[in-house]
């Protein structure tokens, strides 16, 4: 029986990798993948706690997260494609139209 804390540590590691990737990588696709990592770290967290607490609501919530992540991926990829068509780049440092 794997203790809960391992799952929590795994979730934390995956989430941290996601945050680090989001903040440090410059390719917009990688950034996008980092977001997915963060979302899935949350899922691990939810499911492990659900199992630990013997409460199905956590797993239901995980399904919602997966659904939202799917929708977000669809929209996000669409945005990325539109952006790429306009800017011909996937490098976030070159996208600074909102600079004040």
């Amino acid at each position, binding site marked *: 029986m794997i203790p809960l804390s391992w799952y929590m540590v795994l979730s934390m590691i995956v989430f941290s990798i996601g945050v680090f990737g989001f*903040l440090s990588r410059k390719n917009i696709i990688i950034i996008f993948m980092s977001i997915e990592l963060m979302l899935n770290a949350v899922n691990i967290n939810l499911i492990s706690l659900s199992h630990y607490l013997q409460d199905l609501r956590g797993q239901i919530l995980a399904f919602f997260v997966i659904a939202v992540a799917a929708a977000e991926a669809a929209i996000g990829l669409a945005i990325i494609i539109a952006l790429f068509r306009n800017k011909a780049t996937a490098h976030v440092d070159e*996208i600074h139209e909102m*600079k004040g």
Partner: protein
Amino acid sequence: MKIYLLIPFLPLAAFAINILFGRNLIRNKAHWISCSAIIGSLIASVITASDVIGGKVINEDLYTWIVAGKFSVSVGFLIDQLTAVMLIVVTGVGSLIFIYSVGYMHGDKGYYRFFAYLSLFVFFMLMLVMSNNFVQLYLGWEGVGLCSYFLIGFWYEKKAAADAGKKAFIVNRFGDFGFALGVFMIFLTFGSLHYAPVFSGVGNFVGHTVNILGYEVDLITVIALLLFCGAVGKSAQIPLHVWLPDAMEGPTPVSALIHAATMVTAGVFMVARCNAIFNLSEVAMNVVAVVGAVTSLFAATIAVAQNDIKRIIAYSTLSHLGMMFAANGVGAYAAGVFHLYTHAFFKALLFLAAGSVIHAVHHNDVQRMGGLKKYMPLTYITMLLAALSAGGVPGFAGFFSKDEIIWSAFASHSDVGKFVWVLLTCVAFFTPFYSFRMIYLTFHGKFRGTHHEEHHLHESPPVMTIPLMILAAGAVAVGWVGIPKVLGGGAHFAEFLKPVVGHPEFHGTHAQEFGVMGLSTTIAISGIVIAAIFYLIKTGIPVRLAKNFSFIYRLLFNKYYVDELYHHTVVRPSIWVAQRFIDAFTDAKIIEGIVNGVPKTIGRFAGVLRKVQTGLAQHYAIIMAAGVFIMIVLILW
């Protein structure tokens, strides 16, 4: 139903309709609304005036207008004998001028605007004469000034017209400032601005003084002089007379209605209305008399050397207004108002006839007219009658009123009265002289314009000549209500006004009265004869006189250089201050400093702050992550 309310509010309704719907809907039918409104107002005036003749004086407050502490003003109407005369003048002469304007303004692109402003003017003028308190008087006073500005600058594309409008407005500011101060003084002294308590209570303040800049001055004199200051501006007396001749840039019906018959006489009306105040201050009365008489002679001499037909009549108006003030100043208010009344008819007629001439020749220069008699007989005859009336030829309206004034001045037996009498007797020569100079130059002799102009000479349409003929009948006959007793008349006019303005105590024998009358009549007729010699028979004389006395001629031709004097003493320094101080310092430094400085400071601050907004999504994400981290730390601490 208060029928007198129709008198001012019909023209106001006409103004509202014309200004709202004139541009797109009514257009060249604007006169139907304005003319029917003023004719309705004339009918109501006649009904009201006949009530007054029957002895029914109206004085009532309709509703409370302004209340502030002890200060309370209502919209109220006082219709007594003096107001009745003014009502008949304003609506009667006004109606004819409105009808005349239909022809004169035909085809003008501002047609509806013209009638709208004219109606608004009549409304304010009627409010002025019908008010029963000083605030409503002031409302009318400023309102007519505003309409005068609108109408002088009616052809605002023309710079001269726009400038003349501004000049009239600004010069009137000087007078109206004094007038407003006078009204304030009245409120401070009497605690009320209604005529009744002021005029009945003024006797209690005889001998009271007020401290102005360390000098103790008689209170009533100060009030009277301040009020007179307003009259000087509005009625264009020396030294604020300069705006009236320039006001001739406006359309001729405007000159006739506003700058001859009604608005400019508001000052005379106001002094007569406030006779209770003026009577108690000998100084103020003398000032009124002297200013009036001096203006009268001053303007009459200028009129002799002018060549613009409308300016000649404008100076004539100044001269006649001066006479009215002179009459008021010697206490003969009835004579002043009588002259106001006859003057309205013959002067409006002179202007309208001049307008008819201008309509035919398309310029104002009498030197390029001449011989128009055979082209425009109706205009000629009516203008001749007006000139005879203005010149004071016995039997005509102007004679009776002018004679009344001159006799009053003589019979007042004061030094000022004698001074006024001497000046006005001189004026009695100049008035017919310049009037007939104008008539002879315009209508007699040979036409001096171009052939092209001669080809287009024509009599004006009936819509213009019929008002001329009606006014001509007025210019001849309206004086007959005031034939003096010595000529077998009843002096009904003075009797009629007696309840309002009283009757001065004059002592003079019939022989003296005949003597004064005979003298002024002889002088008047000699004026006509000399004008005939100068401008009909020996036309070389005026040219030689102008050459030999070129100094005097140039002085008169340039109107005693008063405009130039004001230009150098008032206008130029004002502009200098405006440019050097207001524009360069107040405007550029203070106002622009604030206006530009505030956004500049904010901009500089923002310039620092905006650096935060890099536009890079990851920077925002780091800040967000840091924020979340800090919050977590704070919560877990």
